[in-house]
């Protein structure tokens, strides 16, 4: 008798648990690239948070930087008949056949953070990405506004030569400051997106510009290079944030630490929250049939010392950056 009751009770409990799930809960498969960078780790943890907030069952598959793993993951999501698939594509080509399979299974696919090649535009519902040209422009506009009318010589730490993000962030910044004749990029060199190279290149900028006296601002294509550059400035006896303005992109926790210490001025966020807008788009598509635009641009928010950097640091440091 007792085991039977127990069984019945547990079956009832399972039913209770399963009922709301089958009625409204969405199951979404997310093929994540892997843990190539701190930002990627933060994107994964924020995706989990956003899914939990909306009571979505998010299944994350880590592809360890390999396209074949991503394709396998997508096929298994199709086999599980999930409601939607999120894909952060590791490369931009080679997705046609697997995305066709998803399309035939009537499972919408949303691209996160990166786009794929144009031939596959009808194979996915929408792409949620940041506009890196716009990021550069936000940085340039902040600098132009902060400097005002006084002449300002800028040194630029570029990302890896040939990386599209680096080219775009340069383009956006250059366009923004082109409107202001008092702003001039004095020197521009690649720091390969790393702290060590950012420091080394900044050291050479300081030497080449008479001990850094003629430099008014540093623009770095990512925060890590800026963290290195800040060290170089301090070692040269300069005060970053005061003698030399700093503006960089990404909004990783360590730049907020520097900002709280008064050693950095501004950063433009590349939000790790790509899943939030994607989840909203999928919910609207599933419930009301609203077809989202082909591209959902995430916000490139500017943070300065006025935004309580210590608090942001505390909230961001647990995300896995």
């Amino acid at each position, binding site marked *: 008798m007792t085991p039977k009751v127990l069984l019945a009770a547990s079956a009832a409990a399972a039913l209770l648990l399963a009922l709301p799930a089958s009625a409204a809960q969405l199951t979404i498969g997310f093929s994540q690239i892997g843990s190539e960078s*701190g930002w990627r780790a933060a994107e994964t943890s924020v995706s989990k948070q956003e899914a939990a907030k909306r009571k979505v069952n998010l299944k994350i598959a880590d592809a360890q930087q390999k396209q074949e793993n991503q394709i396998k993951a997508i096929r298994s999501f199709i086999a599980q008949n999930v409601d939607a698939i999120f894909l952060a594509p590791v490369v931009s080509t080679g997705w046609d056949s697997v995305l066709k399979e998803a399309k035939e299974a009537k499972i919408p696919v949303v691209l996160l953070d990166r786009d794929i090649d144009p031939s596959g535009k009808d194979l996915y519902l929408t792409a949620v990405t940041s506009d890196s040209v716009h990021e550069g422009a936000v940085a340039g506009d902040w600098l132009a506004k902060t400097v005002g009318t006084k002449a300002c010589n800028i040194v630029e730490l570029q990302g890896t*030569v040939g990386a599209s993000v680096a080219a775009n962030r340069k383009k956006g910044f250059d366009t923004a400051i082109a409107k202001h004749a008092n702003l001039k990029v004095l020197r521009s060199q690649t720091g390969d997106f790393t*702290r060590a190279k950012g420091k080394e290149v900044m050291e050479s900028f300081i*030497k080449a510009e008479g001990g850094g006296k003629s430099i008014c601002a540093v623009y770095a294509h990512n925060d890590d290079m800026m963290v290195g550059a800040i060290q170089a400035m301090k070692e040269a006896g300069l005060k970053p944030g005061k003698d030399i303005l700093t503006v960089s992109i990404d909004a990783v926790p360590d730049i907020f630490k520097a900002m709280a210490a008064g050693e950095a001025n501004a950063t433009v966020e590349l939000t790790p929250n790509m899943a939030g807008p994607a989840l909203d788009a999928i919910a609207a598509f599933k419930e009301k049939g609203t077809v989202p635009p082909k591209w959902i641009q995430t916000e490139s928010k500017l943070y300065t010392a006025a935004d309580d950097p210590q608090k942001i640091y505390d909230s961001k440091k647990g995300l*896995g950056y």
Partner: protein
Amino acid sequence: MTALLPRRGLAQVLALIVILAVDRIVSPQFFDLRLQDGRLFGSLIDVLNRGTPVALLTLGMVLVIATRGIDLSVGAVMAISGAIAAGLADSHGLPIVLAAALGAGLVCGLWNGFLVAVLGMQPIVATLILMVAGRGIAQLITEGRIVTFSSPDLVWLGNGSVLGLPVPVVIALGMLILTAAVVRGSALGLLIEATGGNARASELAGVGTRAMILSVYVWCSVCAALAGVIAAADIMGADANNAGLWLELDAILAVVIGGTSLFGGRFSLVLAVLGALIIQTMNTGILLSGYPPEFNLLVKAVVVLAVLLLQSPKLSGLAGIAMRLRRTKA
């Protein structure tokens, strides 16, 4: 200077002087030095300081290459030791941090040495294993993020100064003297060269070739681990994705610029370190020049080609013939 260097060092010294002169042209303040917070400050100091990791790598690499081997894993070993040092820095004292980081290097070296000396694997393949796996190990230690620390002791290793010179430079100098004293102060250097020249003949003559090979790989990894600690101390953080990335190639290049043959049997420590300085002098010059970064690699390739051509015996033979011809015409 020339008394210290063998005659074959002439090409390297000439190359260094020429590159220094070019640096002076592209950047007029290149030789300026001043004191800043008790340490020397100037581009020359940057060359020495930034050249330290590769210089340390060459100290081990040159011995490995002298035994007709090669070690591709040094960059990955740097990442591992840096990750370990950064992870322990804020909770443990400097002696423990250094012991753990260098100990990890020792283990890596034993692994490489075991594969090459005991199992007889081709060095390029044997060390490729750790080159690939090592970076993964480092990423596991740091969980893929940049682990930062604030321990003043470890930071001093990267950013402090002794008598005005950056600490890394002093360490590299000390390691050069130590290595030179050990291998050239005894017959060890000769035995290493014998192993590289003809391992079978050396073994028959009573040289413990296995021990020689094992010990050079261990020394190479320990030097790499030290370079990794310094690189981490420099940026006050361990960046497992980028620390030491491709530096194995710079180290091999430095050894080759230093005139050591990849076929083993002969080596020069001082010239290998000079090779590392040549590479860094060029890198710093490129950064100071203000040319667009798209040209960096091209300039580097042309300079390296020129330095290597300068050492080519065939080419200097041709130049000699040309000069003689001109003289006979005149």
